[in-house]
């Protein structure tokens, strides 16, 4: 098999995987949330309700794609594309198994951070171009929250980078053969995970959306498939965060050899996804100033201390 063909197969495979995971995740999330709230969740469409996202997608596609007359049209259309674009791009660097990676960049971690920092634009532009005061409030909250949490999301990852001595994700995975990074870098893991959930503005950190305060915040004015883009982008973002956490802290494809590497990777990713959904089901939304204070006053010093201690032990 030629190298180019192999690369194309990986690219198509990853995109197909993500496009199947995103609707599957919508179903899984609703089902799990239902179970955790003593309900049953969607179980009507198809066996166990598994075709529910399909029905949702059909509904979204056939819905009127309405652009408010007061909106800034080009920016309004651009914003949902940015969400999906950044979410998809981040997946390019995650190694699913040895050699199965779209782009094995030597700055993989930085690429992830860059894509997640570009993701802010979706919120900011979507909220601003809607020309709606709730959307603008959501956009402002989102921008502040995501810039804040980006800072120590990067810093918390540096401990792992220092231990592996590389920004390359495959090398980081290979450096975890003795022990998963989650044990020596537990503080880094906790900070990264909290920052990651905040960066995705998933519940409990869904302050830019906050249905109860801002009526869906930055995407209030979106309907039809543009809203669907935000929706799908969020779920691809969840998958991406889970996959990245697996790679950085849980040893990626490493695991006992009775299962192939890719199976281990998917299994760990799935477990983290379920945990992210569990967070949504169990925790209340913090107030806006609590979130910012928590970030700057606790998580930032914590990640800096983690960095320092890691450096001490490495250079000792």
């Amino acid at each position, binding site marked *: 098999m030629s190298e180019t063909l192999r690369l194309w197969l990986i690219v198509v495979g990853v995109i197909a995987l993500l496009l199947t995971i995103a609707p599957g995740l919508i179903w899984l999330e609703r089902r799990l949330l239902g179970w*955790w709230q*003593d309900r049953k969740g969607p179980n009507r469409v198809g066996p166990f309700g598994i075709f529910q996202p399909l029905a949702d997608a059909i509904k979204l596609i056939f819905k009127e794609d309405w652009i408010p007359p007061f909106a800034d049209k080009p920016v309004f259309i651009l914003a949902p594309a940015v969400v999906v674009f950044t979410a998809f791009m981040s997946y390019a660097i995650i190694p699913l198994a040895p050699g199965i990676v779209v782009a094995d960049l030597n700055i993989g971690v930085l690429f992830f951070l860059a894509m997640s920092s570009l993701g802010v634009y979706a919120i900011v532009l979507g909220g601003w171009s809607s020309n709606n005061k709730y959307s603008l409030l959501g956009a402002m909250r989102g921008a502040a929250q995501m810039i804040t949490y980006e800072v120590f999301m990067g810093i918390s990852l540096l401990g792992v980078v220092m231990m592996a001595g590389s920004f390359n994700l495959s090398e980081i995975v290979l450096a975890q053969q003795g022990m998963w990074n989650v044990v020596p870098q537990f503080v880094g893991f906790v900070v990264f995970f909290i920052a990651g959930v905040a960066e995705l503005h998933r519940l409990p950190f869904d302050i830019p959306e906050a249905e109860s305060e801002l009526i869906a915040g930055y995407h209030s004015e979106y309907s039809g498939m543009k809203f669907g883009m935000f929706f799908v982008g969020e779920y691809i973002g969840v998958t991406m965060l889970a996959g990245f956490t697996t790679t950085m802290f849980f040893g990626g494809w490493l695991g006992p050899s009775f299962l192939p590497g890719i199976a281990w990777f998917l299994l760990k990713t799935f477990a983290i996804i379920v945990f992210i959904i569990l967070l949504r089901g169990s925790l209340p939304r913090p107030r806006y100033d609590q979130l910012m204070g928590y970030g700057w006053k606790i998580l930032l010093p914590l990640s800096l201390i983690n960095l320092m201690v890691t450096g001490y032990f490495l250079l000792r």
Partner: protein
Amino acid sequence: MLSILESIWIVFIRLFSKKITVEYPDEQFRLPPRYRGRIVLTRDPDGGERCVGCYLCAVACPVDCIALQATEDENGRRYPEFFRINFSRCIYCGFCEEACPTYAIQLIPDFEMSEYLRSNMVYEKEDLLIDGEGKYHGYNYWRVSGMAIGGKDKGESEREDPPIDIKSLLP
């Protein structure tokens, strides 16, 4: 911090608890007999209409969804000429049932009244009238009231003495 982990754990173990969802169309609700649902007009044990057209239900109704017109038959029995309930307005408060002096209007445990046309929510007398006595058995207003109607004169009701002739000196 610990309390956050605790609440996460508490929510997680709900995964294995019994679900309280009742899958409604497949599985019917068991409603209590005094549930206030659809309104019916009942008949007395003899099969006559209980409603005497007193308008009390229409007066009591807070949303004015009841409309009726009283009339009399050849025996002097009052009955509604028409009796109309607009269920798209009805709030199922049960005040009409409480106001009714003859147990005629009653709320029964049935709530499946969806319609595609709003005008179908207006129920006429023939829709409301049922062939039973509803929740209160054996009661017949015309048999216990002192009113004279065709076939029953004054003093012929149940638990009623014949009228006293006030012009007579006899005890």
